[in-house]
């Protein structure tokens, strides 16, 4: 994780300014008190946060989030919401059924050609939908724990669909 900490590429002023503006707007919305002292404190803390983020290497990983993936975000969110609803209904039925028919399964997904950011998005999306939890990310494979065998099969099916890009994705 700390591999790329040292190398800092050329950080565009657009990214720095974007983060700064985002922080500033959230400060103004949250604070609600507009006295000079507090405004200066807010400005100072926003600048400090941007500097810390740059020092942490936050901007080194953002290059793969392009305009194209931003445009795909709504479709992806919608697809994810539908998946979450489907899988949580399934898990709720499992939990409430008296015989507790679970069959825990571990599957391994291989993600060789993805960047770090897409791997994080993939892992987080899998964990977000109930019934599947990413338990390990090793180099280029994701270990996923599923509550049922059926859930594991559905996951592999979805993964195949994603691979052939028939499913909304971010990249």
């Amino acid at each position: 994780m700390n591999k790329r900490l040292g190398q800092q590429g050329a950080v565009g002023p657009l990214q720095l300014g974007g983060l700064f503006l985002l922080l500033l707007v959230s400060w103004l919305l949250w604070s609600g008190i507009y006295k000079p002292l507090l405004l200066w404190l807010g400005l100072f803390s926003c600048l400090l946060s941007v500097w810390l983020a740059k020092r942490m290497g936050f901007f080194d990983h953002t290059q793969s989030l392009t305009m194209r993936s931003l445009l795909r975000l709504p479709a992806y969110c919608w697809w994810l919401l539908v998946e979450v609803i489907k899988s949580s209904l399934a898990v709720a039925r499992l939990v409430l059924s008296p015989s507790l028919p679970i069959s825990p399964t571990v599957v391994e997904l291989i993600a060789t050609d993805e960047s770090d950011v897409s791997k994080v998005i993939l892992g987080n999306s899998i964990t977000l939908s109930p019934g599947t939890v990413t338990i390990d990310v090793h180099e280029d494979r994701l270990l996923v724990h599923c509550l049922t065998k059926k859930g594991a099969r559905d996951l592999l099916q979805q993964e195949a669909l994603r691979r052939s890009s028939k499913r909304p994705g971010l990249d």
Partner: protein
Amino acid sequence: MTNLVLDILSWVLLCLGGGFVLIGGIGSLRLPGFYTRLHSASLTDTMATILIFTGIIIQAGFSLAAFKLLAIMVFLLITGPTASYALANAALQSGLKPDADALDESQADPKNPAEREDVE
């Protein structure tokens, strides 16, 4: 009229969210093993969060409170899986084995008898 419809919608969402919270709590007591309990916690973390926050946002209408609620919801939805992953990975690293079978190429061997009994 639209107010009434929005009201009913938000109450339905809130009640469903409360139900999912309860189901997740029951699941975290009923399910055996740490890794399966993780699933029921994720049930309350995602589905119940989405339902309850959407319900309150509809009640709040278009205001600063709605924006804050949306920000909290997005924050919870992003950090929830991260915390779950950190927890599961810490358990795995410490040597807590998941009591699970591996799904061994179910496509290559669809008539595996050991697997068929679990299929419903």
